[in-house]
C-alpha cells in the first residue's frame, strides 16, 4: 500500500479514531499520541493491509491495544465491572448547580471508569454495541451490563437530587 492509498484509507477515519482514543484515555494529548502511534503501527504493516477486509475495524483494534498500553503505563484500569463509584457526588446546594445538564454530566463523570467510557461512546458518540466492543475489547453482552448499571446509577442519583429540591 503506497502512501497515497494509505492516506485515502486512514485519514478519513482518523477523527473517529481520535474520538475513541479520547473516550478511552480521557486526555487530549494522550488521545492524539495514541492516534499517531496507531497510524505508525498501521504504516509498518501497510504491505499486509490488502488482506484486511475491514481497515476501519482493524484500525480501531490497533488503537484499542495502543490505548491499553497507555493505560497500563498510567496504571489505569480497563476492564473493571464491579468497581464502586469514583466519587459520591455531593448534592448541589445552589440553584445554579441544579441545571439538569450539569448534574447529569457530573453523575456520569463519577461513574466507574468503564461504565463512564461505554456510556459516553454509546449515548454521546452514537457508537453501536459492536463498535464499542471493537473499541474496548469487551464483549457485547458485558457492554449491555455496563450500560444498564450506568443508566440505573445515573437515574437513582438524579432522582435523589431532583426530589431534594421539589
Amino acid at each position, binding site marked *: 500500500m503506497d502512501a497515497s492509498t494509505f492516506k485515502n484509507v486512514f485519514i478519513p477515519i*482518523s477523527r473517529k479514531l481520535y474520538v475513541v482514543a479520547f*473516550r478511552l484515555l480521557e486526555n487530549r494529548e494522550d488521545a492524539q*499520541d495514541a492516534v499517531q502511534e496507531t497510524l505508525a503501527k498501521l504504516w*509498518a504493516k501497510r504491505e499486509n493491509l490488502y488482506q484486511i477486509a475491514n481497515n476501519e475495524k482493524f484500525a480501531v483494534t490497533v488503537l484499542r491495544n495502543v490505548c491499553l498500553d497507555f493505560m497500563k503505563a498510567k496504571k489505569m484500569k480497563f476492564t473493571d465491572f464491579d468497581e464502586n463509584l469514583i466519587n459520591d457526588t455531593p448534592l448541589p446546594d445552589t440553584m445554579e448547580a441544579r441545571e439538569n445538564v450539569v448534574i447529569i454530566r457530573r453523575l456520569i463523570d463519577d461513574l466507574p471508569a468503564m461504565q463512564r467510557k461505554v456510556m459516553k461512546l454509546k449515548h454521546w458518540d452514537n457508537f453501536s454495541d459492536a463498535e464499542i466492543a471493537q473499541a474496548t475489547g469487551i464483549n457485547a453482552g458485558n457492554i449491555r451490563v455496563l450500560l444498564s448499571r450506568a443508566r440505573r446509577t445515573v437515574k437513582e442519583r438524579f432522582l435523589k437530587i431532583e426530589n431534594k429540591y421539589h
Partner: protein
Amino acid sequence: MKTQKTYSDEEILTQIRNAKQEVYIPQTLENDLNTLIDKWANGQTARAQTSASPSKWFWAGGIAASLAIIVSLGLYFQKNSSTQQYSDNLNIKVENLNVADKQKVATAERALILVSANYNKGLSSLHNAETHIKQAQNAVNKSFKKNKL
C-alpha cells in the same frame, strides 16, 4: 404532601443525551497525520511524535545510566579498600630494614601510587597494577622473614 418526582428510563436517557459533551477534535489532526505519513514515506522512522510525556525508553535509559554509575562507584570503593589492604600490609618498621628491603618497600609504595594513578584508566590497568603489588609484597615478605621481623 410532597410528591416524589419520577422519571421513566426513556426520560433519563433523553437527559443523558442532552448532557452530551462533544469531543473537541484538534483542527490540525488530519494535516499533522498527513505530514507524518509523508515523513514515513520519505524514509524517516515511523514513530509517533509524542507531544506529552517522554517514552518508556527515556526512563529505561535513565535507570540504566544510574545503575552503571552506582556499579562503577561500588567497584571503585571496593578496589580502593583492596589497595588499602596492601598499603596496610606494607606499613611496617621500615627503619629496621636493610637497604635492599627498603628499596623493595619503595617499589611497593610506587606500585600503590601506580594503582591510584591508573585506576581511572580502567579495570584492566588496575588488574595489572594489582599483579605488580602482589609481586612487590611477596618480595618484601620474603625479606622480612629473612630478617626475622
